[in-house]
């Protein structure tokens, strides 16, 4: 039994009362994360602290870098040296990381970036939660690209979705964003640890001599540093063999279209929705993250009183589960979207609904109450 497995066996099946940030970190340790690049920022610092404490116990490395740009650069370098790697930050740090997110997309580097969203823009309300980075996660880096992003709503899901993100990042050879928010990151709830072994670590298809590492197939096998394959990794437009070609239209087109296609063609598989009470629903409440908690309370309260309310929570936000949403909302008269921003989710939803979408914004660092959402819901139903 490895050091890691011994460590995991201690937790297996146990339930502990922990914070969302801690759960995200422990999810990474369980998923075989072997390199974490950290930089302190509220409300994500606890992830770095837990990684610094726990990662060495399983033989992994925590490095605190000089800034967020270095943190994400370091984890990308580590990934090419064979690590399952992660960094965690909040809005301002996530902004600094955007160029490197694009580099990871372009070089097809598996890695996990956690963004515990806080109230912005700029320094904003540093200690308060928000959901203002939905579009930053989608479009923060420049150029045409697709991204995978997931949104936990509970402590258990912080753990589970970080685990899933490692698997997705390896499967699609792409960075995965874990879009938490300050409320979910700082809430304390029971977390039940799974039974894991080394066999549960996401595997990485490895290139053999003669394989194309940057093309040829939708998700090419990865060559690692030290594999003696003279791998050439570049964020510049490159041919399937990795060599730069920045002036041929067809080379750029083929590369960028494939990078987009490998995510969009998996949209169905990447669609994860938490759907409740939608049978016969006339008004649907669609939400994600911390907001989904009072949203569910409001929907249940309405249902208890016999009103046709339904609940949809986006577990994976990107790629957007548009077709599934359209189908679910086919018979709905109205969609209510409580969100802790000025309409980032509702605007995206409008593209996939035939009925009106009503945004219930709340900013200022305070999560919606059940009552607020219920009142808005009843106004729409009547």
């Amino acid at each position, binding site marked *: 039994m490895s050091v890691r497995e011994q460590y995991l066996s201690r937790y297996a099946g146990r339930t502990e009362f922990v914070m969302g940030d801690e759960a995200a970190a422990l999810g990474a340790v369980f998923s075989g994360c*072997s390199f974490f690049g950290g930089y302190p920022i509220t409300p994500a610092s606890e992830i770095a602290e837990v990684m610094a404490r726990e990662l060495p116990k*399983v*033989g992994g490395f925590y*490095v605190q870098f000089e800034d967020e740009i*270095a943190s994400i650069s*370091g984890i990308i*370098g580590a990934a090419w040296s064979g690590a399952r790697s992660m960094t965690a930050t909040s809005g301002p740090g996530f902004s600094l990381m955007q160029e490197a997110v694009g580099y990871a997309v372009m070089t097809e580097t598996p890695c996990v970036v956690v963004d515990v969203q806080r109230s912005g823009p700029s320094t904003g309300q540093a200690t308060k939660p928000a959901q203002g980075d939905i579009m930053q996660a989608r479009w923060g880096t420049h150029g045409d690209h697709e991204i995978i992003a997931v949104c936990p709503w509970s402590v258990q899901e912080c753990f589970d979705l970080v685990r899933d993100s490692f698997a997705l990042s390896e499967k699609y050879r792409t960075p995965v964003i874990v879009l938490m928010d300050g409320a979910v990151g700082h809430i304390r709830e029971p977390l039940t640890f799974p039974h894991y072994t080394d066999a549960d670590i996401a595997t990485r298809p490895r290139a053999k001599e003669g394989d194309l590492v940057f093309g040829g197939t939708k998700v090419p096998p990865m060559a690692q540093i*030290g594999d*003696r394959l003279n791998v050439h990794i570049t964020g510049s437009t490159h041919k399937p063999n990795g060599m730069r070609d920045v002036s041929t239209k067809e080379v750029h087109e083929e590369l960028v279209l494939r990078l987009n296609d490998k995510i969009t063609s998996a949209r169905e598989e990447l669609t994860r929705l938490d759907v409740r009470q939608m049978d016969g629903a006339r008004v649907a409440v669609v939400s994600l993250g911390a907001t989904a908690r009072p949203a569910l309370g409001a929907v249940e309260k309405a249902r208890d009183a016999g009103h046709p309310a339904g609940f949809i929570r986006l577990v994976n936000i990107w790629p957007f589960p548009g077709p599934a949403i359209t189908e679910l909302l086919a018979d709905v008269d109205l969609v209510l979207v409580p969100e802790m921003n000025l309409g980032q989710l509702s605007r995206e939803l409008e593209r996939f609904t035939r009925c009106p979408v009503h945004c219930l914004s709340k900013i200022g660092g305070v999560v919606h109450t059940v009552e607020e959402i219920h009142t808005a819901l009843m106004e729409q139903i009547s």
Partner: protein
Amino acid sequence: MRATLTDNIPAPGQNPLRRYVRPGILPTIFCTGCGGGTVLNCFCKAVDELGYDPHEMVMVTGIGCSSWIPSPYFLADTLHTTHGRAIAFATGVRVMSPKMKVVVIAGDGDISGIGGNHLIHAARRNVDLTVLMVNNSIYGMTGGQVAPTTPPGVRTTTTPHGNVETQFDVASLVSAAGASYVARWTTWHVLDLVRSFKEALEHTGFSFVEVIGQCTTSYGKAVGKRNAADFLADYKDRSVRLSKAKKMSEEELEDKIVVGRLKKREAPEFCQRLYQQVEQVSSAALAEEGK
């Protein structure tokens, strides 16, 4: 794209060091008279004399002409990164690749301008990287804009009325930040460069070599030098060996290039300490489990 030293044999009459160059890639894209070729040549010579297997080396570069010296020309694993961040990427590579020699080759704008923060912190950590900074005193690839290494008064495309800033002494900066090997040479000093590259590669800890090198196109235009010979003659005239420089006054050293091995000391290396700590912590955790 696999090629090994044994099957990448240069043709008779070719430079034998071509076996360290990615096959089918020459000629380089460097301008006529660029110092980049000299750096590549000296680096290959150093690797050859040390008998290193390039498969146990990884080249990490940033953005700019000098980053093209290893990427794509040197035949080894190569990580061509974002502008200024090569040292940060290289730190992640180094931690996870304990058996690989990790080398950063990049320019002055990349390393000391946009990437200055990563430079000083890697030096402070004394992480085992070999950083070769080619200093051409200008942003060359983008067409000749002022850099943190451009001397005062020089007219570049973004200082058309003359540079009002003072340039960095990058070697001194890195030395003060904690690097354990620091040297400075110019492309005139090819034999010294080879020796210095070897020392830097063999050194455990953060090793830094500043190579003053000519940009015949952009910097040449800015300072009225037409070709490599003009630059090399100037480097030769202005270079002062460290031993001699120590006896000279600040006024006498004005406009001189102090060359030589500026620093070499033994100091605890970052990765070694990190590995030791992880070993201790994981052993203790394992013992704890056993109870």
